[in-house]
């Protein structure tokens, strides 16, 4: 494999990881602060993508669509928290899983009733649609570079929010001891709604960004949701920093696994068998990664309770 190809694949891995981070950040925040397993996080991703596609189609502007995706997913998050999730904090995880799984079904079919059964059209804005030439004359999709950049900015923004603002202090306090901060006069109900809305808006934003290079269709959020769970388990549940490290690790391992494993098995197998074994093993690679990390660090790479 040439160095340029390897570099391109690393960039692909990084970009994939950054997208996963946008999903995982919200998920880990909600789980860490509120102790809630939210399976409907993928549906919020879908809502973001559909809102972006619908608004972009109506106005012709991808950017308005992007704003709409954040607003729509955030608003849906507030509604879901106030009408459903709020009743689940004192229940055990199984009840939460059941209720949020029901939300997946309701939101998916709701989306299908509104937008129909066929995938929607959503494309990257004109100046990001093509490739750009990087150093050494190799071409890379401009939109993917933009995703890496935006993902980095979101990570920085979240870091500042958590460490430098009053809201961030409350979030961290809520994670550490929710009864104590309630006793200190912080309105815990409002805090939870805000945290849930932030997580939802991030998922919606990720959905809109990815919708432009994927297919905007019902059920698009669930595959990403599974990966996001892998990421937060690897990174350490509740930790934004862990989510960032975990997602980039998962992105790079998955991409390199897909590229290198069939070639590796081809060294001692015929091509057809190597392709199929390589493909099968590469789809397992991130779960193997997760298992190995959990053996050595059962609480994930960045543990909050350390």
């Amino acid at each position: 494999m040439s160095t340029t190809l390897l570099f391109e694949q690393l960039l692909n891995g990084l970009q994939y990881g950054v997208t996963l981070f946008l999903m995982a950040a919200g998920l880990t925040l909600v789980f860490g602060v509120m102790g809630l397993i939210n399976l409907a996080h993928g549906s919020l991703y879908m809502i973001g993508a559909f809102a972006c596609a619908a608004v972009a189609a109506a106005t012709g502007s991808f950017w308005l669509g992007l704003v709409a995706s954040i607003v729509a997913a955030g608003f849906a998050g507030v509604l879901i928290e106030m009408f459903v999730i709020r009743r689940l904090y004192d229940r055990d995880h199984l009840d939460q899983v059941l209720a949020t799984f029901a939300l997946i079904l309701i939101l998916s079919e709701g989306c299908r009733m509104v937008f129909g059964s066929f995938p929607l059209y959503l494309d990257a804005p004109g100046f990001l649609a093509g490739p750009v030439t990087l150093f050494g004359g190799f071409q890379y999709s401009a939109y993917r570079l933009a995703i890496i950049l935006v993902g980095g900015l979101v990570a920085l923004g979240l870091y500042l929010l958590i460490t430098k603002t009053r809201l961030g202090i409350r979030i961290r306090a809520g994670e550490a001891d929710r009864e104590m901060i309630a006793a200190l006069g912080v309105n815990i109900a409002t805090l939870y709604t805000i945290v849930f809305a932030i997580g939802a808006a991030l998922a919606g934003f990720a959905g809109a960004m990815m919708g432009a290079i994927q297919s905007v269709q019902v059920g698009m959020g669930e595959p990403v949701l599974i990966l996001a769970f892998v990421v937060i388990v690897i990174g350490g549940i509740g930790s934004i920093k862990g989510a960032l490290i975990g997602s980039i690790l998962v992105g790079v391992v998955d991409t390199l696994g897909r590229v290198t494993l069939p070639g590796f098995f081809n060294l001692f197998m015929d091509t057809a068998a190597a392709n199929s074994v390589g493909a099968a093993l590469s789809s397992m690679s991130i779960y193997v990664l997760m298992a190995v990390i959990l053996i050595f660090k059962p609480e994930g790479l960045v543990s909050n309770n350390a």
Partner: protein
Amino acid sequence: MKTLKTIMASAVAMSLALGGSAMAEGAKIGMITTLSGGGAGLGVDVRDGFMLAIEQAGRDDVEVVIEDDAQKPELAVQIADKMIQSEKVDILTGIIWSNLAMAVVPSAVAQGKIYVSPNAGPSALAGKGCNANYFNVAWQNDNLHEAMGAYANVAEYTNTFILAPNYPAGQDALNGFKREYRGQLAGEVFTKLGATDYAAEIAQIRDSGADSVFFFLPGGMGIAFMKQYAASGVDLPVMGPAFSFDQGILGAVGDAALGVRNSSQWSKDIDNETNNAFVASFQEKYDRLPSLYASQGFDAANLILSALDKADVKDTEAFSAALKEADFKSTRGDFKFGNNNHPIQDIYVREVVKEGDVLTNKILGLALTDHQDAYAVDCPLQ
């Protein structure tokens, strides 16, 4: 009280028996198809095409029961059991996905029911596992890929990069392509089923020195691949089966699909009376262009109706013989069944073009003429 119940029960049984004989000409058809979730577009098209034909036939004695399988094999099996045992349907149809068909069809035909497939055509049901009561009105899974392989020879591609998802239909696809294609392979990649990111594969294509790309990525996977391919700056010619370029998907892919060559047994511009009428009436009723799935649903219904005119559906042997004659006007023009009850038909190469604002397909020419699948020789049926 007990006597009263018995009397009522026997009255009901008698009226059922009488009703049964009075309605000997009619039939009850059970349609199991995908109407929810990500794959719903295909099922909706099959259903709409099917119901259009039933409606146009204007027969009151044909009843269609429709249920959603949500693309889940276990659910499809439950629905099939219910339809066979309590709804007493005569004919089953509708399944889109090969894995669901494999779960339902063998047991349904073993119970003496007729199954007419409007889509899925797994190789396991075309060769040794063929059955006198199983008919596929669409294609055997490999057919459209074989046509693309034949086209690659005509287009003088000599170094094609091929990719498909790592599951049975994906392996069938690449095998089908290789069965006809005579050039070299620049690379052969199996992707994860349901994958949405193809950056790594596209980088491999760029690096491989290929002169063309063949892919089979049904549904959302194909949409994602085409968009990402267009943005990557790789400009090799792309080809694939119609599944990634049918009417339901083109709108979502957008201009990235323009100029792509794809193979199909049907196209809206096949010029015959049945097809012209079908396209016009489908558009009028549903306010959208039909896809190949809709044409398959329409043909499946007309096939069943043609057999109902000839034989009583309760007489399975006579009825399946009537089906095998394929005495109906297909939207594809010429259509007949081979020994294994799978189609022998022409397969076309189409190009994605823009008509006004709408992306659609235009026929370029024939890829394969009177094509039969490779598994028919293993089937003991005559």
